């Protein structure tokens, strides 16, 4: 039996993320007054090396036996602080995290109340920490292999990297062909390379790779299991036969994007005037070299940027990141195809930040593509020509601009089936509707679901180089469990106090995993820890609390509740 616990409390500023709305110093001062707390500190970034060192040093110098970290969500940094606790020399499960960022500073505006709440949460964490028990890490084997959903550039690159590492990959593609949107493009910026030449060798490599199984016309319709051992139900829209079930260790989502439908900006007349086309339609025209309108070569070609992007009216607040560059590309190609035509780009801002972007933009203007600042407000028809109505904001003058071909630089949107996949995979989406990464800076390809990674435009608009970079990042993250061969699993399991157990078997009845079973000899429950997933349904069913969930024991939970009542 250990003596009284010695608790250290660490309150994180998270830069200003927490400190701006929560008086962290005051929280730390308060924490120092709580029972068993021997040291309480606040620090700029607890997760940083110096922050972790604080914890490690205190464990050693102050003989701490418990650590409480008040910072961000445990889904962010629980492993970090468990690591620090372990390195400090005590069991990593003696660390209790409490979330005062997502639950406090980011959602409240009253500093005093937010601080009050943070204090209560810290008190409850301290109360629980005093009752923590040590646990051992546990792990299970991994099914070697990955599923990649989406056969565009992102999906193919990711699939190839995983396959090249020697693991089987199932590439699940909804349509009847690989290549995604890039397959519909003509040339790509800034190299003006043919998209065909880019994509076709890639498709070929995927199709012939011995470790890649391509499933066309297929969709994932069911998902079970967890990181290391997923089982996916795949439905093939073209075949009647039994649907394959895929068993893999990790999953990469690369489902891409939809193109904005400019009919949602009715003032631009798309769908009404045949000479108002989308940039994608322009790609097809450029591919065939036929730019004629009603059999005539257009003399005045106008491009309108930001259609469906940066636009609260259609709910898309984000910049689609590629339109400026492809507009520069298309406008230049038009100039080359129609040397006599006047080509004008209406823009709000020009964003050509990628490698070679600015240089490409310079060359485009040098080729006499005219950039006019001011977005077009509406388009109507006059004498068979379309009239762009807007303001040249540099001239500060409303203008009517007659054109015989107008290209709407449409942006990207989350795919229509994002909601379905989001539900299936339990993946949150960010405010823009795209899938949300775990952390915008530090975990850009991870999701909140362990073992599920994001690649390409399903996470947000990006160009081909960024897509490929993210796909390769997703592949290497997805490979980690496959290469390790094991993944850690929930260390906390249900445990039975045989002296208390009356053998009623309710825990057995409520467990979906068959973890507890009645011992035939003694008539008491025993837990098979390998099968236990740590949900705690058994503990809730047990009236005498003979079976309990580690880390969520009734003593711990009631101590937390009690501390919150103060």
């Amino acid at each position, binding site marked *: 039996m250990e003596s009284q616990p010695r608790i250290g409390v660490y309150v994180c500023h998270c830069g200003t993320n927490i400190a701006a709305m929560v008086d962290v110093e005051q929280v730390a001062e308060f924490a120092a007054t709580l*029972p068993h707390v021997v040291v309480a500190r606040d620090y700029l970034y607890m997760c940083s090396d110096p922050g972790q060192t604080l914890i490690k040093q205190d464990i050693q110098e102050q003989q701490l036996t418990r650590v409480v970290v008040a910072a961000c969500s445990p889904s962010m940094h629980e492993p970090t602080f468990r690591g620090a606790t372990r390195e400090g020399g005590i069991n990593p499960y003696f660390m209790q995290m409490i979330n005062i960022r997502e639950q406090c500073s980011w959602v409240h505006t009253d500093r005093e109340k937010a601080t009050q709440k943070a204090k209560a949460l810290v008190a409850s964490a301290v109360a629980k920490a005093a009752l923590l028990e040590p646990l051992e890490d546990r792990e299970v084997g991994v099914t070697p292999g990955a599923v990649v959903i989406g056969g565009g550039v992102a999906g193919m690159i990711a699939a190839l990297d995983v396959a090249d590492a020697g693991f089987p990959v199932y590439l699940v593609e909804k349509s009847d062909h690989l290549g995604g949107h890039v397959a519909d493009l003509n040339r790509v910026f800034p190299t003006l390379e043919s998209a065909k030449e880019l994509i076709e060798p890639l498709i070929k490599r995927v199709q012939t790779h011995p470790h890649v199984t391509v499933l066309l016309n297929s969709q994932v319709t069911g998902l079970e299991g967890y990181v290391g051992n997923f089982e996916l139900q795949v439905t093939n829209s073209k075949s009647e036969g039994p649907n394959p079930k895929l068993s893999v260790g990790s999953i990469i989502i690369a489902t891409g994007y939809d193109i904005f439908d400019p009919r949602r900006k009715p003032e631009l007349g798309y769908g009404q005037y045949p000479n108002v086309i989308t940039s994608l339609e322009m790609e097809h025209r450029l591919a065939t070299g036929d730019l004629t309108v009603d059999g005539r070569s257009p003399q005045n070609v106008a491009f309108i940027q930001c259609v469906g992007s940066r636009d609260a009216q259609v709910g898309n607040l984000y910049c689609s990141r590629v339109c400026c560059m492809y507009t520069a590309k298309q406008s230049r190609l038009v100039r080359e195809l129609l040397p006599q035509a006047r080509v004008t780009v209406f823009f709000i801002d020009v964003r050509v930040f990628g490698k070679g972007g600015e240089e490409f933009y310079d060359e485009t203007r040098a080729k006499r593509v005219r950039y006019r600042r001011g977005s077009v407000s509406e388009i109507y028809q006059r004498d068979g020509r379309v009239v762009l109505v807007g303001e040249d904001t540099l001239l500060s003058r409303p203008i009517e601009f007659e054109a015989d071909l107008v290209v709407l630089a449409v942006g990207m949107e989350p795919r229509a089936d994002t909601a379905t996949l989001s539900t299936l995979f339990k993946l949150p989406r960010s405010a823009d509707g795209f899938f949300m990464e775990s952390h915008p800076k530090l975990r850009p390809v991870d999701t909140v679901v362990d073992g599920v990674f994001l690649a390409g435009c399903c996470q947000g608009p990006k160009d081909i180089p960024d897509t490929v970079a993210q796909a390769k990042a997703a592949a290497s993250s997805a490979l980690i469990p496959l290469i390790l061969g094991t993944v850690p699993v929930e260390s906390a399991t249900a445990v039975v106090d045989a*002296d*208390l*157990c*009356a*053998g*009623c*078997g*309710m825990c057995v*009845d*409520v467990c979906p995993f068959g973890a507890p079973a*009645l011992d035939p000899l003694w*008539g008491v429950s025993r837990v098979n820890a390998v099968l236990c997933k740590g949900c705690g349904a058994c503990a809730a*069913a047990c*009236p*005498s*609390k*003979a079976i309990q969930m580690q880390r969520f*024991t*009734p*003593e711990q939970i*009631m101590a937390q509740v*009690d501390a919150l*009542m*103060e």
Partner: protein
Amino acid sequence: MKTVIPVENGDTLVAVRGFLKRLLEAGVVDAVLVPMETPAGAVTPALVSDSRLLDAANPLAPVMGLNAARVVGPVSIREPRGKIAAVLRPCELRALVELVKLKQASLDDMVTIGVDCLGTYDVPVYEVMRADDGVDVAAYLASAQSGELAPQDGYAFRDACQMCEKPHVSALSSGERLGGVEAVVTLELFGADLSAGIPVTLPDELAEKLGLTDPSPGPSPARRREIIEKVIAARTQVRDARFAEMDRRLEQEGIEGVFAACVRCHNCMTVCPICYCKTCLFKSPTFDHEPLQYMNWAHRKGAYRLPADTMLFHLTRLNHIVLSCVGCGMCTSACPAELPVGRVFRTIGQQVQAVFDYVPGGNVEEPLPLITFREDEWMEVGEE
């Protein structure tokens, strides 16, 4: 088959004892679990293997000191076990069904002998009766024929009995249920002239072993039904009035008002046939609080009732067992503060049981409501 255990000289009890003895003597069972009169005259269940001792058996004694389902568990739950016949009242049989679901008792190799219940007295009342006026057994048994179930003058039946609307048994083999509590063998007192014979229903095979081969009509099923309905009607009236009154009290005073005088002796839990935990949660380390904790609570509310968590105990016990509560009322009998524990549990119980359409003690095949679920039920809950 249905037959009648013949009664000689109007001594019904001797006929019942004879029937039980034959069970042992014919080797049908190894022991009989039955209420016995101790040499001092008290009545208590015993497991009897020597048929001679059954001369002290008295399953018709109008007293209930405990719910015998509690003692069936330990003698039946594990292999190896012998064959047992257990003589039980309807509320005991129902509790037994719940305990079987909770794996606290087993019906394997068990001959349940259900006896219609004419109402029982609490032990202290019964003791006073015995000492002062004597127990008028003849009048008590005669009430079975008329259905005019009344306590002896100057005494009252147990509170739970007064409002018991499930006083009768139905044989598993008979096919005619009458909604009674099921048993393998049933001694059907209602509607019968017990001074002449005791109607019994039992499996043919068993009847043969016992030499009860003479099928006898006994009272007509219609007559029995009529009497049972009469008893139920009277009891239901009492029950509903008490439910209504208790509902009112709970609404006005809250459970904390009704149980205000609780002394936390845990007797209600100890005598409850359904409270099966080895150690009650409230006696376990989970509720071992630190002195500082008590001090905090005292500071928080200004004053803090001790022992701590008294209402939490009652509400948690409601949570744990109210869906299985068979209304035997032993809790009320055992309460030193004379709180209407049973009435509270029955009043709340029938409302909660109705939510899940669950009848405790009905059928061992029906799962306990809280360990099962249907995906498509209560779809609106949680979505608001």
